[in-house]
Structures are given as C-alpha cells and as structure tokens.
C-alpha cells in the first residue's frame, strides 16, 4: 500500500521550510529530484534505480556538504569528528548512519538508500510546497507527484548552468549537483550548457573535496553497474 506518511521520527527534511520559490530548498537531493523529472508533468526522466541511486548519492552529499560525514580511504562512510549527538538526533539519515554497528562502504549505502530515496525526497518536496500529489485515474494506482510551479521545478537547471559557466563563481552545491546529475544519466540535459569555452562537469567536480569526488564517482559506478547487470 502506498505509504504517503512514512515514518516521520526525528529529522524532517525541512523542519523550517522557507517559502517555495526559484531559489529552491538549498538541498542537493531536492534539486536533483526536480532535475530528474519533467518540470510540467512530473514524469521521471530516468529509470527507477538510476534515479534512486543518484538521489541516494545526493542525500549523502548533503551530509558531506554540511560537514557531518566523510569517506575513509577505503570508501566507508564515517562521522566527521565533532558531530554532536544533538545534530545526529535531528537528522533521520545521520541517525541511520549512527545506528549501523560499524562503518559501511559507500556502495552499500547507495544501494540501501536508493530503495526509498525518491519517495523520501518527494515527500520532503511536497512538505516544502514544490510538489503536489495527484491521484491516478486508475483506482488503487499510486498516483504521481506533479510540480506545483514549472518555473520553480526548472530552477535547478539554472543552478547547474551556473556551475558550468566560467564567468560565475562555483559553489560546492552546484558542482555536486552537476556531478550527481551526470552520474545518474542526466548528461543529456546538461549538454546544452557544456561548451568548449565553459567548464565541463568533470572540471566542476574536480574542484570539490576528495570525499565528494569519491562519492560522485561511486554513484556513477553504481548507476552503470545497474545498467550493465540489467537490473534497473
């Protein structure tokens, strides 16, 4: 049965949502979700597992950008020293990381989170006012999430564009977004902004820290492996 109100223990994605608009929620996974769906119909542009894996990477990237987790050299996900118990309690995903008996490799996290990432991010976007849930016409169908405002849904494209425009300053958020979008298979959407004179996605990603670079690469590998093993 479609669980619209999944477990909402500590850690709503947007505890204090700003009013929805062109500047977005400031979260990478939210932007990636909107990038991965049509801005009018809300239809996904990616296969389910590719979308889920990309969003899983984005959820982890959010924690990395906030400075709470990092990757060990063996690619296991670990807390950054100095993360307080209070912080962990306030974020559902951090709590899940803390609940694991030991550090797990990022590939395992990507597989695990991919299963529910799209649902979780969509629920958060609905809360923040970017998506609305529309019942399907067929009874008992799941229905789908449709953007409330197509301009807001298209705004993440502009953030990616600014990452690829050498005249604009590069932010970690937009570089990570561009990298994860390419890793999930959305390069075809980014192509129009990749010019000879501009930055390529690779160039933008290369400016990120080693943990984020590794995360994006592992996301790419996970998506490609799903393509190659026929399980998408």
């Amino acid at each position, binding site marked *: 049965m479609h669980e619209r109100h999944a477990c909402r223990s500590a850690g709503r994605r947007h505890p204090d949502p700003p009013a929805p608009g062109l500047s977005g929620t400031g979260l990478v996974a939210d932007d990636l979700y909107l990038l991965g769906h049509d801005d009018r119909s809300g239809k996904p542009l990616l296969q389910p597992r590719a979308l889920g894996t990309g969003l899983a990477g984005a959820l982890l990237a959010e924690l990395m950008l906030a400075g709470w987790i990092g990757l060990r050299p063996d690619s296991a996900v670990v807390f950054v020293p100095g993360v307080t118990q209070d912080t962990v309690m306030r974020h559902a995903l951090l709590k899940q990381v803390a*609940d694991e008996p030991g*550090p797990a490799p990022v590939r395992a996290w990507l597989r*695990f989170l991919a299963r529910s990432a799209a649902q979780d991010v969509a629920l958060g976007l609905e809360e923040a006012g970017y998506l609305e849930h529309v019942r399907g016409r067929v009874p008992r169908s799941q229905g789908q999430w449709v953007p409330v405002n197509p301009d807001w849904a298209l705004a993440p494209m502009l953030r990616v564009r600014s990452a690829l425009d050498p005249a604009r300053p590069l932010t970690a958020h937009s570089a990570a977004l561009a990298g994860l979008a390419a890793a999930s298979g959305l390069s075809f959407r980014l192509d129009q902004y990749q010019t000879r004179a501009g930055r390529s996605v690779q160039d933008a990603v290369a400016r990120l820290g080693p943990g984020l670079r*590794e995360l994006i*690469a592992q996301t790419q590998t996970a998506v490609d492996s799903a393509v190659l*093993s026929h399980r998408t």
Partner: protein
Amino acid sequence: MSTQAVLAPPSAMSRALARDRLGIPAVLAFILAGVAPLTVAAGVIPSAYATTGLTGIPAAFIAVAVILALFATGYMAMARHITNAGAFYAFIARGLGRIPGTAAALVALLAYSFLQVALYGAFGPAAAGLAAARLGVQAQWWEWALGAWAVITVLGLLRVDITGRVLGALTAAEIVVIVAETVSGLASPAGGHLSAAALSPSALTSAGFGTFGVLAVVAVLGFTGFEQAPVLGEEAKHPRRTIPVTTYLALGVIGVVYAGAAWAMSAHAGNSHVVAAAAAQGPGLLFGLGSGGLPQAAQWLFLSSLFAAMLAFHNCVWRYAFALGREGVLPGVLSRTGSNNIPKTASLAQSATGLAVIAAFAVAGAQPMQDLFFDLGTTGGFGVLLLYALTSVAVIVFFARNPRQEGAFSRLIAPALAAILLTGIAILAVMHYGTLLGVAPGSAAAWALPAGYGAAALAGLALGLVIKVRRPEVYETIGLGAHAASFQAGTVFGGRS
C-alpha cells in the same frame, strides 16, 4: 569491510539489502534465458548436421561440457577477485595485461556481433514458413528479418528488456518442449532399435581426428552464455556459493538437454540418414520428433526464443560498447545515455551493423539458415572459444602472481587443462574451418572469417598501445568497465590495487 561484515551482527541495512538479492533459481533463469535453448536445439543442431555432415554432435556436447566445467572452475575462482567480472576482457586485462585485454575486448565485440546478426538468418525463414503455413501470408525471409530488426531497434531505444519472469517462463517452456520432443524421438528410433553410438567418444573423431575441432565449435556455440552468472555477482545472495552452483548447474542442464536432443534426432532419423534429413527438414528435424500439438507449440516457441536471443545479444553488444566507452577505450560517445538511461549511440551502432548484414545477405541471394545463421553463428562461437582459451591462460597468470588463498586445482590444474584443450580445439577448428562452414577447404570464407578475429586482435593490440602512450590515465582503467569512474577518483586516496 569484509571482516567487519562477518563479525558484526546483521544490521538493518544488511538485512534490507539481502532481501533484494537474487537466489539460485533467479540466477539460473538468467543464465538459461541467455543461452536460448530452443534456438540451439532447433536451429543450431539440425543446421550442424546438415552443414558439417558430421554425426558426432551428441558426444560433442558431453565432451565440451566436461571441458567447460574445467574452464569454469578457474574462471569462477578469478571472478571472486576482480571487478567487472561479467566481461572476458576484464579477466584478460587483469591476468595478461591491459594491451591484450584491449585486443580481447575487440574480439568479444566482434564475436557477440556475429552472434546477434546470425539470428536474423534463422528468424527470417522460420517466421516466413510459419506465416505461410498458418496465416497464409507470403513474404521473403529478409522481409521478416527486417521486421524483426525494426522491432529490436525500437525496443533497444526504448530501453525495453523482456522482464525476468516472462523470460524465465519462456525458457522453462522451451526446455520442457525440447525434453518432450527428445523423449518422443528416442521412443521411436529408426529401425526400432536405439543405439548409443552417437554418444560415445569414438563418434567425436569418426570422420577424422581434426573434425573434433569442428564439432567442439558447434557445441561451444550451444553453451555460449553459460558463464554469465558473474554479471549478477553484486546482485546475488551469498555470491561465493550462488555463482558457482548456478554455473555448474547450467552446464549440466544445457549439456544433458542438448546431447539428448541431438541424440534423439539422430536416433529417430537413423544415424546414416540424419544428415540428409537435417538438410531437408531444418528445424523440423526437432519439431517432427513429437506429435499432436507439440510440433506447432515448438514452432511458435522457436520464434519467441529467437526473438529473445536477438534482443539479448543486442543488449550484450551495446553493454560492451557502453563499458568500453566508459573506460575510454572506445569513443566516449558510446557511453553517453539519453533520457531513460538509454545509451542511444551504442544501441544504434549495433542496429546499424545488423541492418547492413541483413541487406548484404539478401542482396547476395544467400541461404539464410546456412550462410547467415550457421556460418556467422558458428564463427561467433569460434570467437567465444578463443576467449574461453585466453581467459584460462589469464587465470593461471593472475594466480601465479598471487595465489590469494585459492586451491591449486582451481587456480592452476583446471585452467591449465582447459587452456590446453580449448587451444587444441581452436587450432583444429581453424585447420578444418571449411568443414565447419560446409564449404570447400580453400574457399574464401574458410580463411576470411577466422582471420577476422586476427584482424580484431591486432587492431586491439594497436589501440591498447596507442592508449598507453597517449592517454595513460585511460590506460590505467582498461578492464574496469563501470568501475572506471571510481578507480579514477580512488587515486585521490592513493590508488587501488
């Protein structure tokens, strides 16, 4: 990670991931679907009888099953230690070096391409015959072939894969039908007396020692795909157990089913008449073993089997191109995906090849079953044989550097035996390639087709060398396939072994 996972109690994550994983039945279904049993039983076996004129085909399946079991032992052992274990060139790159690996990649691409386009040569006539007999529709084999080509092209672009359940059900039905026909055929042998002569080892060389090579290539064609279990390595429950178990099971099932079917055809027609009967009846040689509704059911399943195999090999070729493009060995445009994660360029490239071949054979007025299906199909099988042989050598060298706690049988004895036998078969096959194709020994096809692999290998060696010199960072990732991206990032942390 591994010691941590073994010692710690199962976490919420590991339990959740375990639920997703595939068990032995699912992996076995995946392998058998790729092998397309009815395509071999009704397509390859009668064509082999007719084209080569050899009757030792049943024995060949048994002999090759044993040889491939030896191959599989070393192959599984090495698969546990490398990434991208679904592709032969990964083994060869890790074992023998990246430049031979590149050569192997191009040989594999050529072999799988042969296998894919060859299927049109069987689908066309089968569809034409069935349509004429049941629906009263008259059309040329190549019109049906082009129709199938168009559907495959569209399905490939829409990123449609036949779902696992449908494929599993069809494959199970195929095996049931083959076994039913086999039993029926063995129950009604020519002359009322069933002889096991066709199964004995002496049948392998009864027409001359060298013909064993020919028979073995036919058998290898039948087994092609049995080794694909490692593709699902990450997806399987208890991979260390599931992968080998399903592989040996697949070998056993395939070997028995094919040997049985080939024997039944020979027994039913009479050992001395089977070649003529095969030439006259083609796939009907299998269908006619049964009675009642069985032949007709078999004919329709034959079409669906061929179609599924065409789609499977189409996917196989573009996945190879995709992985090689991701590494940078082939142009990167092949690894680009369009919407819905479709690698359009790779898919279209394979489709273009298919179209060109169908057109060429149609214009030349060739015999589709014999010239397109059997000749190109067995040449594809020959390429796979070369890859099996080379992979066995790669396994030995890989473990010679570091035994990695694998037993001597797995890392040395079995692959050595397999390498020797497979190489011997390859040499015999080249010497008697004319017999395989059913043409005179000196004719052009008899040297041109095997030489095609020589050309692909040389091109691959040259390509590998060029990459090593001009793009060393790409050279480092040869063989890694999808993992090329993480390897490159991993160098940030000091590189990986």
